[in-house]
């Protein structure tokens, strides 16, 4: 087991290294730099700024310097936000996105599985149709449209929930709902698709014939076997949701991490781009790793650890 973990750790470091390299050179390949602005600034001043931040050095030197710093945990200062470090930005924004993301995940997993299971059990009846219609609707509406609509309905017209910003539990509800809609729908459809297959199988018929209740059959037998694709979907979904959503955060004025993925690029804030990308990919690799570990629990036919 220890060897397995060490191997996985090495793979993680290797992937992070590749991502850092690719992102670094991608970043410098596009036009624009952190300092040009819509103003008349003398060229000498721009060069002195670039010199101060080490941007005048050859690319590979900048790259190696960055890597050295990153390995020691120093992700560098932000070029645009003077006085803030990238680690500071991440540690300020991540807990907020994390809280929101966990709430959205919880909602989508519970609601999605319940909806999907109900649709599968009552297949071809009105419950199935209604559930799947709802799911299709949520898939075909982007999160920011839903967010705007929910905000208008619940916060403006009905005045039940806060309109924007962050602070109490009720501030988290509307954004979490907006974020959870798409995953709920996808999970519901996946669960239904798989459960329908599973429910048609012989061992279910046997269980029912033996006298097991519907509830027990679903939860103890059918569900486990249907969850594999849901789990696969959950891995990257978790990493994405936990690092925040740019659109939803903007609409609700939430100080999370999601906006930095876009703002960093828009500002050509190189260290921020590198920092959040590495953070996201570390999170993603971690979650995919966890999901891979969980696969055999759900489907004992899959065996990993025994491989050479």
């Amino acid at each position, binding site marked *: 087991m220890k060897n397995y973990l060490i191997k996985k750790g090495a793979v993680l470091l290797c992937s992070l290294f590749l991502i850092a390299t690719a992102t670094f050179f991608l*970043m410098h390949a*596009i036009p624009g730099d952190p300092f040009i602005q819509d103003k008349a600034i003398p060229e000498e001043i721009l060069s002195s700024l670039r010199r101060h931040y080490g941007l005048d050095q050859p690319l590979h030197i900048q790259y190696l310097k960055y890597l050295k710093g990153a390995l020691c945990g120093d992700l560098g200062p932000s070029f645009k936000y003077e006085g803030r470090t990238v680690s500071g930005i991440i540690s300020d924004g991540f807990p907020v996105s994390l809280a929101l993301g966990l709430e959205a995940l919880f909602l989508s997993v519970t609601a999605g599985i319940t909806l999907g299971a109900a649709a599968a*059990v009552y297949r071809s009846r009105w419950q199935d149709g209604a559930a799947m219609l709802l799911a*299709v609707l949520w898939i*075909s509406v982007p999160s920011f*449209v839903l967010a705007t609509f929910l905000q208008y309905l619940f916060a403006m017209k009905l005045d039940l929930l806060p309109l924007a910003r962050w602070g109490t539990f009720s501030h988290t509800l509307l954004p979490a709902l907006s974020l959870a809609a798409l995953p709920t729908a996808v999970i519901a459809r996946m669960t239904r698709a798989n459960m329908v297959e599973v429910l048609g199988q012989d061992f279910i018929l046997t269980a029912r014939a033996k006298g097991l209740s519907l509830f027990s059959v679903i939860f103890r037998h059918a569900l486990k076997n249907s969850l594999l694709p849901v789990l696969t979907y959950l891995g990257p979904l978790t990493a994405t949701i936990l690092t925040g959503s740019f659109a939803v955060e903007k609409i609700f004025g939430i100080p999370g991490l999601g906006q930095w993925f876009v703002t960093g690029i828009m500002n050509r804030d190189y260290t921020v781009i590198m920092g959040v990308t590495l953070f996201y*990919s570390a999170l993603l690799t971690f979650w995919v790793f966890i999901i891979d570990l969980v696969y055999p629990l759900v489907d004992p036919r899959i065996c990993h650890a025994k491989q050479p």
Partner: protein
Amino acid sequence: MQNSHDPLYEPLSTPLLETDGETLLASISYWKDGVRRLKANPLAICALCILALLVLMALIGPSLTPYSYYETHLSLKNRPPSSAFWFGTDELGRDLFTRIWWGARISLFVGIAASFIDLVIGVLYGSLAGLLKGRSEEAMMRLADILSSLPYLLAVILLMVVIGPGLASIILALTLTGWIPMARIVRGQILSLREQDFVKAAAALGAGRFRLLFHHLIPNCMGSILVTLTLTIPSAIFAEAFLSFLGLGVQAPIASWGTMANDGLSAMRYYPWRLFLPAGFISLTMLSFNLLGDALRDAFDPKLRS
């Protein structure tokens, strides 16, 4: 004592076997059988009709009105649907009926083309990864993870600068990482399928990798593949809207449904038709694709055939 209201099962209405000594079921190929089952499904026919109608309107819709999609009538802006403008006008006074059907061309084409490419790449990549064992599978999946962690926006801006806007560049941008979720799902399914007896039996009978894949494994993943596909299409449509917003993709005044929905968002409270018309058509298209996808799965998934 279980009664007959078990939601999982229905009592037989007809005897299972009717025999007069003749052969009961003629031998029929997998694909022919699937198509036959598809044709018998009323919802599938309905979905196909809706899609056909949408495609038809995309082709002839703009010629049904005297307006073009780019003519502005600034003083007639933001009008609700009327006899002069069947779908109303947008913020520059352009006829929305014409623009919706022009947008249909872009959204349907880009959505379907990109999703199809994602499907092919994703299924091939994922099944290969699922079939191979050990290091190669690891490497393939890690490569996919790395690709999906790269800042997408950077790659898109680079594409825009290097290739310039247009349909080709937007489809390229969409398919750069769009295949990864499909690949992951397929790989996961194959991981669980490959240990099953029927696969081992087929392998023992001498089936090569190719035949194993296409004849046995992939058809059994059909359910998940189709569900993921019906997710890929709307995400392609919205990603296209996002990319057009950034300057990649079709340039104004041509607009896709996604772009129109984006523009109509700020008008939701005041001129709701500008949002609900394009968004509604996207939903309708998605609904049809989903119904079709479900029907396809019901028809072709070996596990569902009684």
